């Protein structure tokens, strides 16, 4: 639907041919067994996320964005349809292929920042030196060098999310799913974290699927914005964000930015 290839220049990323999709969702539907009977939550969702792309999903509250992401992560089963990640179906969590970063930092308060980042490595019994080395590298990548021995409660909201991102990246999965990771942060921290995320992303060439409520954040981060309707959630629009990269704060003041934002807002209002 959206043809973006001519405008996208992503530093540190190779231009990937569009047919090489990291995530392919076909005819996915989901029905909950609610208290008052079956509730259709997601309806006939089909989408394809190219390898190395940054795709943002927006939509009204309760439209099933998070459910969709949980399904992409293999954390929840869908009623119908298929999800392929690099050609293979997703049915269980597979941290080697897909990393997930949650709304609240969801760091373990009994572990230091470094131990939190090491956690997924220790789950699969990686040797101690390797764990330390990789976690330390991630800590530097997210700009928290020297904070490794702190406990989560000793870190600010933004720093916690940096640790959370580091934890999601430490197993080096090609796909990163992010469920409103910056929602709990104040506006200023949120913009800084968005900028940071783009910096990290440009260094790691991951495929990112990112959920947010913030339209500014959506336009600022995305290669492509998917707009979902109110329940049952469907994808009602795909908007290519043709701003150049690297993105800068100044771009937010441009007409192009404003128009994109306006278009998404219009779609969401229609959807609600």
């Amino acid at each position, binding site marked *: 639907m959206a043809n973006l290839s001519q405008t996208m220049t992503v530093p540190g990323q190779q231009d990937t041919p569009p047919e090489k999709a990291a995530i392919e969702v076909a005819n996915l539907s989901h029905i909950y067994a609610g208290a008052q009977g079956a509730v259709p939550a997601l309806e006939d969702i089909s989408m394809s996320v190219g390898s190395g792309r940054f795709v943002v999903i927006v939509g009204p509250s309760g439209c099933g964005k998070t459910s969709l992401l949980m399904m992409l992560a293999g*954390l929840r089963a869908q009623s119908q349809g298929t999800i392929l990640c690099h050609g293979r179906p997703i049915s269980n969590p597979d941290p080697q292929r897909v990393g*997930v970063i*949650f709304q609240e930092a969801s760091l*373990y308060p009994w572990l230091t920042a470094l131990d939190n980042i090491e956690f997924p490595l220790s789950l699969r019994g990686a040797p101690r030196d390797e764990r330390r080395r990789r976690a330390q590298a991630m800590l530097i990548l997210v700009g*928290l060098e020297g904070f490794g021995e702190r*406990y989560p*409660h000793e870190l*600010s909201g933004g720093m916690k999310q940096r640790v959370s991102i580091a*934890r999601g990246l430490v197993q080096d999965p090609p796909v990163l799913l992010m469920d409103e990771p910056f929602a709990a942060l104040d506006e200023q921290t949120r913009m800084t974290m968005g900028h940071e995320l783009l910096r990290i992303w440009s260094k790691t060439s991951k495929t990112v699927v990112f959920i947010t409520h913030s339209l500014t954040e959506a336009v600022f981060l995305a290669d492509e914005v998917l707009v979902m309707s109110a329940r049952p959630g469907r994808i009602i629009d795909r908007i290519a964000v043709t701003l150049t990269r690297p993105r800068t704060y100044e771009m937010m003041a441009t007409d192009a930015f404003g128009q994109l934002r306006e278009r998404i807002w219009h779609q969401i209002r229609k959807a609600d």
Partner: protein
Amino acid sequence: MRPRALPAPAKVRWAMLVTLLLAWELVPRTGLIPELLLPALSSTLKVLYQDSHIYWAALLVTLYEVALAMLIACGGGIITGAVVGGIARLRDLLLPVFSSLYAVPMVILYPVFTAWFGIGSESKIAFAGIYAFFPVMLSTAAGIRTIDPQFILAARSMGATLTQQVTRVIIPASLPAVFAGLRLGGALAIIGVVVSEMLTAAAGIGYLVTLNRTILDSARVFAALLMILVLSVAYYMLARAIERRVVVWQSVGRAPKAAQAEGGPGVPVAAAA
């Protein structure tokens, strides 16, 4: 007029303790309260010293009973609490029952226990063990039930097996509640043992209280009370110390807000990149 800084709470607490001890010594000496009702601190300490072999023997009996009662209460309480709190069906079925049982004055069971187990240590251990069991069990169940589901979701997303979810997430996450339960449970085990010794016994510190009260030997009653007091406070401080060491992230939780000051939007290192 500059407001004077309040003295540190620790200093105030020590001052209160010293005042209390001084009053304990001075009030009976001045005759305000007869020594029969309140023997002076020095008289109490004197009989404690004179009869130290008796009090030591009694303390050992009490400690032995308390230790076994705690073992029953903590072991049983943690296991039952984990099972009841962890399995939704059992929780809905049993938790209301346990919660309401907690409100029953357990001491009414003690006569039954003496009939079953005799007046030796066994009846004290059984009674105090059950008495202390409930808070440990309820606290553990609550601790497991209130674990942030996000913790488990995150662990699953990182590929944790079911066993790993239990050992690496559920157990550490419920530790603070479990420890709170243990602290309370241990204190109740001490109470349970002492009370049952006071009711029917042939040994232990509680027994010494009752025995000396019946012969109006106030100094010896107070010597026994003093020992119980020291025992309880020592237990509480020990429990807190262990808790602080094990549940690091909770005990330091309140203090440092340093991160807020320098964290903010951007850490300098990152901004440069």
